[in-house]
């Protein structure tokens, strides 16, 4: 049993498409005095049906890649976003070379570890951040602000564009995939176009910037 904020944590659901990897995560969880539960298959039936059976004392530990085996049709960021929206604290593990996490999902993944071998103390800290954010207390680097986002250039081939967020940095161009945009905004993206979006302008690293709730400039 682990107490984080106002929660008593007993069980960790491990989501990874490789059974060996799931087992290897169990050791760290057991060493924390928690029960590890491997989620064996989320591909069949509704992918998020396992979230319906989740207990208030459960948390999630999820790997980013879930599609190599016939395990899931979505990546871990999607699972985490949906889990967070249902009030479940979770940690997403990804190494630095993984594909970038969708910027809109990132808003709902406070427990992000750019580390595929998390230590118990790292896991515990990440869940704690998650619980705090679920209680409405994001840390400064995760606090969303409505701010101007300017399109610098568009890479049609890679289906992404590069944005400058003047409130964060006028020099850094942040890549944003079209996938993470609502259709009405995607249709408007072109160089020099400006929008408003919720962005965590307190983030230090451009990879940790999330963009959500896009608005056309009035």
């Amino acid at each position, binding site marked *: 049993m682990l107490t984080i904020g106002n929660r008593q944590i007993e069980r960790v659901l491990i989501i990874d498409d490789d059974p060996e*990897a799931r087992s*290897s995560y169990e050791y*760290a969880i057991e060493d924390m005095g928690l029960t590890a539960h491997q989620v064996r298959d989320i591909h069949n039936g509704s992918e998020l049906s396992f979230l319906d059976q989740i207990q208030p004392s459960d948390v999630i530990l999820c790997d980013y890649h879930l599609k*190599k085996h016939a395990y899931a049709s979505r990546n871990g960021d999607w699972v985490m976003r949906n889990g967070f929206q249902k009030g479940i604290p979770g940690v997403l593990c990804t*190494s630095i070379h993984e594909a970038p996490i969708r910027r809109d999902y990132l808003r709902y993944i406070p427990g992000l570890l750019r580390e*595929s071998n998390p*230590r*118990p103390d790292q896991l515990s800290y990440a869940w704690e951040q998650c619980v705090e954010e679920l209680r409405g207390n994001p840390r400064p680097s995760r606090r969303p602000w409505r701010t101007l986002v300017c399109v610098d250039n*568009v890479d049609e081939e890679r289906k992404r564009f590069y944005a400058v967020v003047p409130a964060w940095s006028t020099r850094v161009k942040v*890549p944003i995939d079209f996938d993470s945009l609502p259709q009405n905004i995607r249709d408007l993206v072109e160089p020099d176009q400006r929008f408003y979006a919720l962005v965590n302008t307190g983030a230090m690293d451009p990879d940790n910037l999330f963009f959500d709730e896009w608005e056309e400039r009035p």
Partner: protein
Amino acid sequence: MVVQAMSDLRSTTSHLRFSTGIVRRLGEELNPTLSKGILELAKNAYDADATECRIELHDVSQPGGKITVRDNGDGMTSSQITDSWLVLGQSSKRSAIETRLGRIPAGSKGLGRLAALRMGRNTFLTTTSRQEKNLLHELPIEWDKFDNAQIAEDVTLNITTRLADQNLPHGTEIRISDLRSACSRMEVKRLARELVLLADPFDDITQGFNPVLSAPEFEDLEVLVQNRYFDDAEFHLSAEVTENGEAFARIIDWRGNLLYEARHSDLIPKGREIYECPPAKFDIWVFILNKDTFSSRRSTISEVRNWLAEFGGVHIYYNDLRVNPYGGQDNDWLSMNLRRVRSPEERPGTNTSIGRVVVHDQQDQLREKTDRSGFIENHAFYDLRSFACDSMDWMAKCRLREAEHRRQRARKTVPKQSDTAQHDFMSTIADVPQEMRLVIKDAFKSYESSRDREVNMLQKEVQLYRTLSTAGITAATFAHESNANPIKIIRNCIAAIERRSQKISDELFLSQFQKPINGVKRSLNSLAVLGSATLSLLDHEKRRNTRVDLHAVLNKMLEIFSPFLRGADVTVIKKFASGSPFLRGQRAAVESIVTNLLNNSIAAFEDAGTHDRVIEISSQIMDRSWCLSISDSGPGIIGICKSDIWLPGQTTRKQGTGLGLTIVRDAVLDLGGSVDAMEHGPHGGAVIIIHLPIIGNERC
């Protein structure tokens, strides 16, 4: 609270009135340039069903000049002047109501006219209505009176009507005198261009509206525009979107043969059903401006190039009149040039093509901005643009397929052509005298044999590149696999063993487990480098042209290589110049340079069995140049000429590819720099010296 009874003492009516400042501001802000203002008046003539509209400029190179705009349109009655022409912000023109000649009016708010009239201090209107040909109406406007008045209605305007003895020609003349600003020659040229293009001069069917500017610039352009080099275009893409939002397209070649046809499903991106824009027709003519293509054409490249330089780009004709700025000289609303940069072979640019999007919009789905700077960017406009872009994307794919077929055909036909040429040569020298024939044959054989050697070498080189590419792809796949799961699992397990053994007994851990666990960890780190270094090189972002901080790249590469370098017992000495020098280029190019040089040194140590292994990496900044020097304690450059080390395939190592330093040289040249080498440097081994031009050096 006490509410007292109140009764109305009196009632006063009032009106919202406008200060004359509004009139001034509308004039200044809506039509900032003279050409824009005159274009508005020409559009007014079009709306009045004029077939001719003549514009004269007098002494406009200085302030105080005069402009006359005369048309043969329907003219106005006195009440039309009062109730329509002089009413701001309201127009009798509505898109749904066609004019007598079936035109859809181009004006919308009547504000453009006001702005145009205010270009001078005085305006004089003369008009005769088609219905009252014996009446001439005149209206002078002195704008200074408005500047001196408080509100617009304080200035009285007098319309004088004269009765003529005979029928007068109907139409309107506007004289704007005492111009507030001068008009440069560039501005006149711009006006001439816009008037020439106003009524789609490219269409075979004329619109029956001819705006004419009495200026030499206009005459030159009019001649140029009439030349119409469409038949010399290599391809003509013709696409159409119908009223129900479905599109289709076809491409024909310069001989008029149909090459490709696309249905709606071939054009529209997946996930979308229809284009939600007014019905439109998009034509673009694409030119290939090279000598081979033009050898069989009627016109010359320079003629076509001049024509395209003036009129190239994709124009929009909205209800038969051109809309600025689309297709203007600085306007690339379909991002054609950006797309062309990415794939020059298949994409047209604004200087190599000309096109138009013709829109007949009865439903007013598109709306022009009040300041006439284009359409309001609403859903219909974006879909219209998507339709044009998707059509061009489809054309690019067709052209890419064609280019690939051409390459395949060339592969098959080139050897045959070579055999035929050889046969022709032999037949030709059969006619040469006997002794000369033998000499020529020997010389030809010698040429053939050296050519075969060269071809052989090139084939080997191509094969080597292919093999290396395959090795690279395979390495990347394995790197991804090994980095993802196996290494992750081993790390998780070894961390668990470490934690649990420590928990049992610190003493036991230190004496029995710590050393083997650390051994596994070190080996894992070395193994992980293989994956991370490979994946790091493959990052697509690194192949974009961007600011590259050279010292940051060096440090990052050394960090990635550190387990390898440690594993090979190499000591790295860093002597970097102060600050952060940077250039604009591809990070991947700089990484290729550093990676290949580090690999070379490590391989040299291994081959020579070097005992004290040192790599010194130093940098200096001289003016606008960054000098990188990598020297090692290996055997140096031996067994190969110093100048040959850069050649492909030249290596002294059995397993070497001989491509590492070639890649270094090519990458340096791509960045605008130079390379040099020394056989033996301060540590005894080779020194490679690289100079790269930099943009600046940021002090820390």
